[in-house]
């Protein structure tokens, strides 16, 4: 098996085949085991590698996107222990033992997650770059609503139930920017899944 230095990998000077990349023996590397989409990956990583770069460059999970790389766009949103986070501003080594879910872990082409299906149904995207982040974010957002989390636009902070108005939904999804402006479709897609959930689990 050939091996690559971190410089080569950061330059993109390696084949991208959707497989964990073997690394040259390097004293700066740390062993890290990551649990992503229910697979455990044993990796050797430099501590400075972000979770986002690890997913994309080392695990071949390119569904998660890099937009700004500074926390401002939401394209890199993934779920860690069920909570949404931005994978560009966290180090992979900080996530040993955590349960990480990316867009690839939510559904499969022949068995889409309800939100994936709803995004297609409602034209929740144009170029699709923000979509994996939007969907991961929406999955967690609906869970937060279910557990009664408040938002900045919530009228009554003492209320334990959320009235998910359009204003509430916009505020709660504001961490995900869509450069194409597909917001109307995004909102409709999420609302449909929310309403389905309200009616109880789908048969």
């Amino acid at each position, binding site marked *: 098996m050939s091996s690559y230095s971190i410089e080569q990998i950061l330059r993109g000077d390696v084949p991208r085949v959707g497989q964990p990349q073997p690394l040259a023996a390097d004293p700066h590397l740390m062993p890290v085991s990551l649990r992503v989409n229910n697979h455990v990956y044993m990796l050797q990583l430099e501590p400075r590698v972000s979770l986002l770069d690890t997913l994309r460059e080392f695990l071949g999970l390119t569904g998660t996107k890099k937009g700004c790389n500074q926390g401002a766009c939401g394209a890199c949103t993934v779920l860690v222990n069920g909570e949404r986070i931005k994978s560009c501003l966290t180090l992979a*080594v900080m996530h040993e033992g955590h349960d990480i879910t990316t867009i690839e872990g939510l559904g499969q082409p022949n068995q889409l997650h309800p939100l994936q299906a709803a995004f297609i149904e409602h034209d929740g995207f144009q170029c699709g770059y923000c979509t994996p982040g939007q969907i991961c974010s929406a999955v967690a*957002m609906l869970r937060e609503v279910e557990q009664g989390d408040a938002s900045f636009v919530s009228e009554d902070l003492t209320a334990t139930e959320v009235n998910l108005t359009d204003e509430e939904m916009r505020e709660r999804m504001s961490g995900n920017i869509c450069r194409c402006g597909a917001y109307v479709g995004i909102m409709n897609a999420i609302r449909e899944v929310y309403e389905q959930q309200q009616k109880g689990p789908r048969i």
Partner: protein
Amino acid sequence: MRGFTYTRASDADTAIRAVVHNAEAKFIGGGTNLVDLMRENVERPSEVVDVNGLPFAQIEELPNGSLRLGAMARNSHTANHPLVRVRYPVLAQALLSAASPQLRNMATNAGNLLQRTRCYYFYDTTAPCNKRQPGTGCSALAGYNRLHAILGTSPQCIATHPSDMTVALAALDAIVQVQGPNGQRSLPIADFHRLPGDTPERDTNLGHDELITAIDLPALPFARHSLYLKVRDRPSFAFALVSVAGVLKLSDNRIQEVRLALGGVAHKPWRAHKAEEILTGAPATPELFRRAAEAELQTAVGFEHNAFKIELAKRIMVRALTTLTERRLA
């Protein structure tokens, strides 16, 4: 980004020992500020000590009625804790107004206190900046300074502290609990952050080798009547241009007690003591609110692009007081 060694601390002593022995070591919480600044080469630690495993993630009531917010508790969990939502709505709102849901799930309470300014020149390593590199000058003085401070500035630095959470903490007289190599100490929030003076490179009075373990909110029953208002360039996911945290206790339309703090106007959360003095004991009227706001902003100095903040700060103070009064009378 400079390479660094990474260690995970499982207790406070180990974490502190690591930074005592290395002036270039840094703690990491959520990483949302530190990773960003490391990527820009503004922060260049040789060692990063992960404190997420320390047992400081709880939110609990103390026997004296204070609420202790663990240093490693996430901003989202803190905002949604039932006791914070009911007793300190001003803090819940300040937290919920900040950043985005994903970032709030990452950001720790300690990291939030220590986040650094968003001054563009601080981030730009090609620009002179006294905060990043003492003695090089301040690019914002004659540069683009729309985000910058109007109160407590110095010729060395006119940066603002960007945190929303700390503005609410200032109004609530929170106490920061700290542990260092020589034991523990408590820092009132008013003494935690600094004005720039001649040492803008120092944001706070925390030592390099000190670890934040908790933030205590003293019991303050009238804080149930409190709010956080934030004015920004878009209605969500943006830093404050100006913000205000307000807490009001009225009795028969007379102000018994009031707490006001401003954000986006200074190098630290700005407690409006002058305004509070004028308001306390007086009947709650729009004229009084305006007079108090005028007095607080009397020493404000605007720069080329941020002079609008002076009037904005006055209006947002009046708005906060009016809203709180109307709610009490409703």
